């Protein structure tokens, strides 16, 4: 991908899969740094602690990339829970899905709001199979100057004799074995003490300090103390110089009584490890005192090839660096794919599509998220241009979020998330491809342009992939379908390869979580194989972005892209308890062509509103577009596919767009057969859908239909 981009004059890929977070170039002065991670196991046993640590821990990744000290720009989060209205019997030590939901939500509220980082975008997915282990994905974007005190900010340099400084919080017993416990299945005995509890204020102090110290050139490079604590942070940094000596007795403790190995592996939060030149120590320590951030000199880097850990002069560990990093033999696992037996259902004959739409709008995966969204600060820092809810009513759900980088220019970034676990029950390949396309089309909907379309367009895109799968290691008794589960993972990866190549959109970082199972009382609850693609793209001028809500009466409504008979795995089938067979497929060539046309149309300002089609298909997208101001719409479905397919199929790569009457000719000429004229925006607040002249659908007041179970 990098070669393909560079050949076309696009050399904005700066750091890929090699540091705490990936980095791409915004312009000659600044870098965009971003990372998305999961924090699933901790959130299962301590939802609040797990989620807040997820947010704060993920914040530290861009903060500690390269030299360090990036300024955080936004948070995003995607959450997968069991049904919050579950009323069955819980297994031993299993928390109720609503308790997990509320705890995680509160953790995200405090983690983001108290750090002063806006939560601009997210998603909540409900499925009974997340009732054992929820999935909690946290993402953070940040901006870093290309140069810090005259040095390339993204480079990590360390020489022998540089000091190792621990900055931020103190070390306690919290979070010992956090990393190892996260990598096994949960059961009745999983220890709550393995979960660290984050303190946003302690971290905010350390973050403010890091921003200042890096700009003054006091820090050579920094890294985050996350999983594995000091053992992992110093173990990683020591590869740069070729070794390190750590003196554990110097590490400040929350309370006495920790054994040396506990100090070394504790995952107590809010800590950074810094490499500092001896000559800069005095100035650094005095800045720490001024800002009330505790800094401790706990050893120095060497070049002798060993990680040498001591306590009061006694040796605790002395490990060869080569063995430490490359000593684990590679696992060989078996995968075996077989297509599931599936068939299209015969549905009861219905013509009451008003009722179907109303039920869809109230269903768990479609209903309004307003009650959750409003409890997150999505506009601190004053730069959020497209928020999760927009319009005069503040109730129109949006696709990608858009945030500008600063107050001096109109450059910004669009942020989206694609996740479609339902489709994995039919085919993990199409689920993965669809999730990738969903993230791309959300950015295209707000006015983002695909990358590398022309020479040196400088239009960065950057994706984080996060795979969360159940235990996929075959075992005849404990995991008999392990080979099939692994095959699903393989198919997800194959789709990812095809999608990145088709759109020329690169992955810059990611994380995998491989044991998402909960076992108790002889029952195992495993998550469906899930992948989240979190995507960002540069927006040249945020003033030209597009929101999803209808803007004016008499604007003409179009469907962009093609609908297929693809109701398999749809929310529509779900209403009838059916899965179906025809899983939506992404036709990459046609999708890319359409997205390119949309970029050109936006250059000519031909589009007034645009909403991507996803859960619930065309009918839901139309209803959502009316929420922003109370406009209605009158739509006539064309001949062709059966009406329920046209209304509810979840075929990918489609949009509902509106066009000002004076631009209709230019618009239709530009899109040709890719655009289907559906109808017009109306002043009355009614959504009317007709077919062959007779009304199919006319909900009383679409705005009121959003109050589902989570909108209390």
């Amino acid at each position, binding site marked *: 991908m990098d070669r393909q981009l560079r050949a076309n004059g696009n050399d904005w890929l700066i750091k890929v899969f090699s540091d705490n977070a990936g980095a791409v170039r915004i312009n000659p002065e600044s870098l965009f740094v971003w990372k998305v991670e999961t924090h699933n196991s901790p959130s299962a046993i301590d939802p609040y602690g797990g989620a807040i640590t997820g947010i704060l821990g993920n914040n530290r990744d861009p903060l500690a990339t390269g030299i360090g000290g990036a300024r955080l720009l936004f948070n995003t989060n995607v959450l997968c829970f069991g049904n919050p209205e579950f009323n069955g019997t819980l297994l031993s030590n299993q928390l109720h899905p609503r308790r997990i939901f509320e705890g995680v939500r509160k953790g995200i*509220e405090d983690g983001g*709001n*108290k*750090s*002063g980082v806006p939560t601009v975008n997210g998603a909540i997915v409900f499925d009974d199979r997340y009732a054992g282990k929820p999935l909690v994905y946290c993402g953070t974007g940040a901006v870093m100057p290309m140069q810090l005190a005259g040095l390339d900010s993204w480079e990590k340099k360390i020489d022998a004799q540089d000091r190792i400084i621990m900055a931020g919080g103190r070390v306690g017993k919290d979070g010992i074995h956090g990393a190892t416990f996260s990598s096994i299945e949960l059961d009745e005995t999983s220890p709550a003490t393995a979960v660290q509890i984050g*303190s*946003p*204020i302690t971290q*905010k*102090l350390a973050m*403010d300090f890091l921003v200042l110290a890096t700009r003054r050139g006091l820090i050579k490079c920094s890294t985050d103390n996350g999983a594995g604590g000091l053992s992992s942070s110093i173990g990683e940094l020591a590869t740069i110089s070729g070794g390190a000596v750590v003196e554990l007795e110097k590490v400040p403790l929350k309370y006495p009584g920790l054994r040396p190995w506990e100090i070394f592996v504790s995952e107590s939060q809010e800590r950074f490890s810094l490499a500092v030149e001896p000559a800069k120590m005095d100035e650094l320590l005095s800045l720490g005192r*001024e*800002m*009330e951030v505790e800094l401790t000199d706990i050893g120095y880097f060497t070049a002798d090839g060993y990680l040498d850990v001591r306590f009061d002069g006694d040796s605790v560990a002395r490990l060869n660096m080569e063995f430490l990093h490359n000593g684990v033999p590679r696992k060989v696992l078996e995968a075996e794919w077989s297509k599931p037996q599936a068939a299209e259902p015969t549905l009861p004959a219905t013509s009451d599509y008003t009722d179907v739409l109303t039920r869809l709008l109230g269903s768990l995966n479609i209903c309004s998220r307003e009650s959750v*969204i*409003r*409890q*997150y*600060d*999505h*506009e*601190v*820092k*004053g*730069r*959020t*241009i497209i*928020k999760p*809810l*927009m*319009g*005069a009513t*503040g109730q129109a759900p949006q696709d990608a979020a858009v945030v*500008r980088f600063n*107050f001096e220019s109109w450059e910004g970034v669009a942020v989206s998330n694609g996740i479609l676990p339902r489709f994995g029950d039919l085919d993990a390949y199409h689920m993965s491809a669809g999730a990738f396309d969903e993230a791309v089309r959300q950015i295209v909907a707000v006015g983002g342009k695909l990358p590398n379309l022309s020479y040196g367009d400088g239009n960065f895109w950057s994706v984080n992939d996060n795979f969360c799968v159940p235990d996929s290691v075959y075992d005849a008794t404990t995991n008999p379908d392990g080979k099939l589960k692994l095959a699903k993972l393989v198919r997800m990866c194959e789709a990812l390869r095809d999608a990145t190549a088709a759109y020329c959109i690169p992955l810059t970082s990611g994380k995998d979580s491989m044991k998402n199972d909960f076992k108790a009382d002889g029952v195992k609850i495993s998550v469906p194989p899930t992948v989240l693609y979190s995507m960002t793209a540069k927006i040249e001028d*945020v*003033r030209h*972005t*597009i*929101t999803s*809500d209808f*803007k*004016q009466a008499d604007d003409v409504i179009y469907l962009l892209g093609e609908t297929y008979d693809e109701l398999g795995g749809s929310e529509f089938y779900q209403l009838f308890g059916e899965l179906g067979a025809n899983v939506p497929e992404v036709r990459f060539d046609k999708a890319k062509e359409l997205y390119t046309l949309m970029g050109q149309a936006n250059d000519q300002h031909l589009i*007034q*509103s645009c909403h991507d089609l996803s859960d619930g298909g065309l009918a839901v997208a139309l209803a959502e577009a009316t929420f*922003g*101001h109370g406009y209605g719409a009158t739509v006539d479905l064309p001949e062709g596919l059966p009406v329920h397919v046209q209304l509810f199929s979840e075929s990918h790569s489609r949009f509902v767009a509106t066009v*000002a009457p004076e631009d209709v000719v230019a618009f239709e000429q530009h899109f040709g057969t890719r655009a289907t004229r559906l109808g017009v925006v109306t002043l009355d607040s009614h959504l009317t859908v007709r077919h062959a002249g007779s009304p199919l659908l006319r909900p009383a007041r679409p705005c009121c239909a959003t109050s589902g179970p989570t909108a209390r």
Partner: protein
Amino acid sequence: MNDTSQKVQALILTGFGINCEEEYAAAYRLAGAEATIVHLNQVLHGHVSIHDYDILNFPGGFSFGDDLGSGVVLANKLRYRKNAEGRTLLDDIKEFVANGKFVMGICNGFQVLVKLGLLPNLSGNVTPEVTLTHNASGRYEDRWVRLKVNPKSNSPFLKGLDTMEVPVRHGEGRLIISGTDTLAHIEEQALNCLSYTDFDGSPTDVYPHNPNGADLNCAGLTDTTGQVFGLMPHPEAFLSLYNHPDWARRKRLNPGLSEEGDGLRLFRNIVEHVQSQRQTAVSPQEASQFSS
């Protein structure tokens, strides 16, 4: 340096969990002033003097985590922490206000000014007279509200302003005024300078137009001089048209719409006021120079 040629100087405090300092500074810069962001400790330790500035600003955020109640710890630091000379920052702030200078607090900054007693300060003794507590809804909320300026307010921050749209982002923004005397004094002197209104512009106690259930539907207070001003909503979050949730439709309706947000007008107001004050203060001096 000639006083009138120097830009108006705004000091913006940060550190310990304050987190709206960047947009606050941007607001003053866009309004033509110079904004300096300084860590609280630099002021508390006496390394930076507030008297070198015209407007002292307390931004929003979660100072010291707000675990004892919003703004409480910071207010206590200002009241009790003494620097090497034995002065508290509150001593300096009193002198600062007596010198005719201005203090502003937004959200957490407003909470600090109220817990400290700088607002509304009916008695002049800087003791807390009202309080801000948990929203009636029981939850933190981020939503846009409409404000009406009290036409009787004497504060230069609000001169010429009538209505304003701004976001609120708080969990403890409900103003409680206990005692009918206090309430009457606040109303008589028009210290309740901003109220939450419905779509028609009438003050309302109906949720969510009034997002927190505040007494008098009050969103902001001034002291009796009008020099100290605080509010729960965030004018610094509406500097550009494109911050508003309905910007895209409004721009479609009116392509010539100003790209400035409502919040910026408030900052222009105070910056212009300080500038005009300087001109009137300097003119007699210049006159005497000419005559000598």
